[in-house]
């Protein structure tokens, strides 16, 4: 899915996630890019919120990482792709991490499963000791 997203790239933006305020920056940039891609209404809030969740996950579990934002175009349909990447400890049991209410950090445990519900496509790849990459997309309706 990542490669697919790469194909459609039009504009790309990288937001380093190192401190608390970076989470706010990432979701603001994500909203702006979604507007550029022609998304509107509550979809903008959905995207910004999903970014907020994955960005916080980076801070809490890996300490630092990055959010990459891309515009997409596939079969004439536009959208945005959000990639959250870190080189932290990784996730041992992904299905468990994707369960509502499961959390080892300071959260409600709704971060990842919640973000998945807000977006159209969601994929998570992790190798223990090497980090986590979350790729998610939202398409214009």
């Amino acid at each position, binding site marked *: 899915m990542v490669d697919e997203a790469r194909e459609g790239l039009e504009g790309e933006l990288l937001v380093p996630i190192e401190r*608390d305020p970076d989470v706010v920056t990432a979701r603001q940039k994500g909203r702006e890019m979604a507007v550029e891609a022609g998304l509107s209404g509550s979809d903008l*809030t959905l995207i910004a919120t999903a970014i907020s969740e994955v960005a916080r996950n980076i801070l809490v579990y890996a300490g630092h990482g990055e959010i990459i934002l891309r515009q997409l175009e596939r079969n004439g349909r536009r959208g945005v792709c959000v990639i959250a990447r870190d080189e932290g400890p990784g996730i041992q049991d992904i299905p468990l991490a994707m369960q509502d209410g499961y959390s080892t950090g300071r959260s*409600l445990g709704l971060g990842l499963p919640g973000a998945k519900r807000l977006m159209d496509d969601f994929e998570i790849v992790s190798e223990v000791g090497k980090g986590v990459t979350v790729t998610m997309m939202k398409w214009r309706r």
Partner: protein
Amino acid sequence: MVVPILKQSDVLIASIQAALTDADLLQLRDDLLAKVGQYRSRGVVIDVTALDVMDSFATRTLRSIAEAARLRGARTVIVGIQPEVAITMVQLGLVLGAVSTALDLEEGLELLGALNRKDAPGG
């Protein structure tokens, strides 16, 4: 970004002006809970009209403010949740639990009055 907290008779009003970081939210929690004790407030209104995102952390923090404030004798009402934010919160699976909500500040103050009257002995 410090959230200003206003005292209006026995109610505290915190009106969030812009996007908040997690640290700002925790600061707001500590400030509010300290002031509830200091002023012996009976109600807290948190105005989130300016928030364009209410994610799981923000929701959890607001909920914990409300719960802790209640233990210290004050009711909390969250006002100004925007339509898009409300939809997102519901889809994310977030619930405010026992926390009351109202449309705006005016409604929130009215609701607080009603809640406190109900709580009052003999009322």
